[in-house]
């Protein structure tokens, strides 16, 4: 994948030109965006469409644990669940990735083996991002060397909110470079905005473009540590951004809402939005992910209901 910075080098060459570009993007009317998101949420997805959506949603889950109390035992259990979410049903697909802190990457990698499930690591002084660049880069390299397939970085929200767009841009570029491996098997970079702190939808559109121009493979809403985390209107604006970016450059960027998506019904609303806003090309774990922990069991319960016609309680699904 070429570095997109070259396509927009005239824009990203200086603080002034970057600011002019970002502030020149069309505004987002919040009331209108919320109304559109709510309208898409009324789609009725039933029978075959629901079965298809549930399996796709499971395949899109980044099964996540990001706690101070995480242990090697805990993440091993999570990794096992990622590979076989429903031990009772071998037709149930695996999730996309397991998302952990960098020090757990090696353990997860070992458990996942050649299952095809990726290891994602949060890095760059997650979740606040309040550290020197050197430390953020070291954090990233540490995870990459341990075998992370994907890096979920956080942007410097303080820099963004104070208008230092170029600093945010350069940091993303530097982290992307730190994702490189000598063999060329680079880790993919997801850029977390923490939209709950950026607050306005105008900011969401601007930061989306900024990250895409800096070479993000994925743009991600939240760390899960700040409320509100992912919302439908925020995801709507990000899906519009990746759609417009492909129109402008030919390059696809993925989208990952994370945090706060707990029910199968909610997950399906997101898939409808992906389908009708960005388009069906994005309906693939390579281009859309859910950052979630409890969502998976909700999806599994709905899936079992679809396949057996019966509801079974939470005790029939593993807690890991």
């Amino acid at each position, binding site marked *: 994948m070429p570095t997109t910075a070259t396509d927009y080098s005239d824009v990203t060459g200086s603080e002034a030109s970057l600011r002019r570009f970002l502030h020149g993007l069309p*505004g*987002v009317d919040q009331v209108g965006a919320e109304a559109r998101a709510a309208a898409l949420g*009324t*789609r009725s997805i039933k029978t075959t469409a629901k079965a298809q959506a549930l399996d796709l949603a499971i395949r899109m889950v980044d099964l996540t644990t990001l706690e101070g109390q995480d242990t090697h035992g805990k993440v091993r259990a999570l990794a096992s669940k990622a590979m076989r979410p429903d031990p009772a049903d071998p037709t149930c697909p695996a999730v996309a990735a397991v998302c952990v802190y960098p020090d757990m990457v090696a353990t997860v990698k070992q458990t996942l083996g050649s299952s095809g499930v990726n290891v994602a690591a949060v890095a760059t002084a997650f979740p606040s991002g309040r550290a020197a660049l050197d430390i953020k880069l070291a954090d990233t390299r540490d995870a990459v060397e341990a075998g992370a397939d994907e890096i979920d970085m956080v942007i410097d929200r303080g820099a963004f909110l104070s208008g230092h767009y170029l600093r945010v841009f350069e940091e993303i570029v530097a982290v992307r470079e730190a994702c490189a491996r000598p063999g060329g098997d680079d880790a993919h970079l997801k850029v977390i905005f923490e939209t709950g702190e950026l607050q306005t939808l105008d900011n969401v559109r601007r930061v989306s473009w900024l990250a895409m121009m800096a070479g993000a493979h994925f743009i991600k809403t939240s760390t899960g540590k700040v409320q509100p985390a992912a919302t439908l209107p925020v995801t709507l604006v990000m899906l519009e951004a990746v759609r417009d970016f492909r129109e402008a450059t030919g390059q696809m960027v993925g989208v990952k809402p994370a945090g706060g998506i707990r029910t199968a019904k909610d997950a399906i609303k997101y898939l409808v939005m992906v389908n009708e806003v960005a388009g*069906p090309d994005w*309906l*693939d774990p390579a281009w859309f992910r859910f950052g979630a922990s409890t969502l998976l069991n909700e999806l599994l319960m709905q899936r079992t209901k679809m396949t057996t016609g019966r509801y079974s309680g939470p005790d029939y699904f593993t807690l890991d």
Partner: protein
Amino acid sequence: MDFTYAPAPESRSIVDLKASYGLFISGQFVDGHGSSFKTISPATEEVLAEVAEADDADVDAAVKAARRAHTRVWSRMPGSERAKYLYRIARIIQERSRELAVLESLDNGKPIKESRDVDVPVVAAHFFYYAGWADKLEHAGFGTTPLGVAGQVIPWNFPLLMLAWKVAPALACGNTVVLKPAETTPLTALLFAEICQQADLPPGVVNIVTGAGGTGQAIVAHPDVDKVAFTGSTEVGKAIARAVAGTGKKVTLELGGKAANIVFDDAPIDQAVEGIVNGIFFNQGHVCCAGSRLLVQESVADELLERLKRRMGTLRVGDPLDKNTDVGAINSAAQLQRIRELSDVGEAEGAGRWSPPCELPDRGFWFPPTIFTGVSQAHRIAREEIFGPVLSVLTFRTPSEAVEKANNTPYGLSAGVWTEKGSLILHMAGALKAGVVWANTFNKFDPTSPFGGYKESGQGREGGRHGLAAYLKGGDL
């Protein structure tokens, strides 16, 4: 990946369709003296029911019942008591909302999504809102004396909502009504009659007579009708104005429109696209205030049109009862014929016609969402009301040119302005000759907000405090 939405039909079983319906006069369903007519589902052409046609004698009986109820009961009842009935009706509408929504979509052809989420909730809101005014009329500034008997004739595009706009303020002010629903969509009005029975509304306060133009004329011409309220075409509106001239009857008319939806170069572009789609494809464009003329600033026209076309490609046209349908059926064969004719004229006059690929059902009345580009003010499709899912796209260079073009029409019902600049919104709102100006939104309806037109779009206002003026003796002040 291809994500195909499986059919999600709303069940019809909640609706108890009768084979035939009579007239609702003095609290009872009675047979009419005229012949009966059939009402069909425009989506399938299936006959839904036979409906009585009211002749002059039937209309006379209805007006007499209304007069009696007015003199003996309704005008004497304290406003606080009238309010109780209106609140009760509003609550029953909410309780029976699914039934009303399904029946509305069956008879009218509009998507269940709209009847369920827009029509019926706004209907209930109207009754709740005017129930609140019934005992507070002295604070509204139009006096407290009702006019008497109101003759009301409503169109087929929002059958139940237009009924609510007419009936709720009339009753709140102490008038009684004789209402005629449109001949292609009489069923929800007749279900409303049942609701009046269920609410124990005194007999004669609401009378519903079904029929076509002749029945409407009989109401308008009846000497004991004190007030005529009409929503419909400008042509019929003019005829009504002539008929009541010199009679002392009060009249309000809500007629056609050819609204400009004006998009400036700094508009929030994705929301503007949504507003354009909502402005013209909501209810198949069967909306008097539809944003049927898109005026887009030339510097962003290409980009906007590209986005609009992409968005139109995701519109789902088909079965009105499917919960995922965005655009339903055209209401009647006659209306479809008119839309086709005017669209053919647009093409013949050289405008560029475009519709997204979409499969239309074999039976029923259907027209794909359509836009015409390269339209100028001289084209008929820029001047005449099409009343269908057809958008004419024109461009402008400056705000003053936008105002000039927007106002250059015999109509003046509504307009939309899309810009991130607040001062421009205020300037445009002042300069546009339209009864309603929406800023960064379109087709928003609320019972608290007055609605009505300039010029050939009508006279009088419905909704809000202003809506009371049309039904009170002090309303001319």
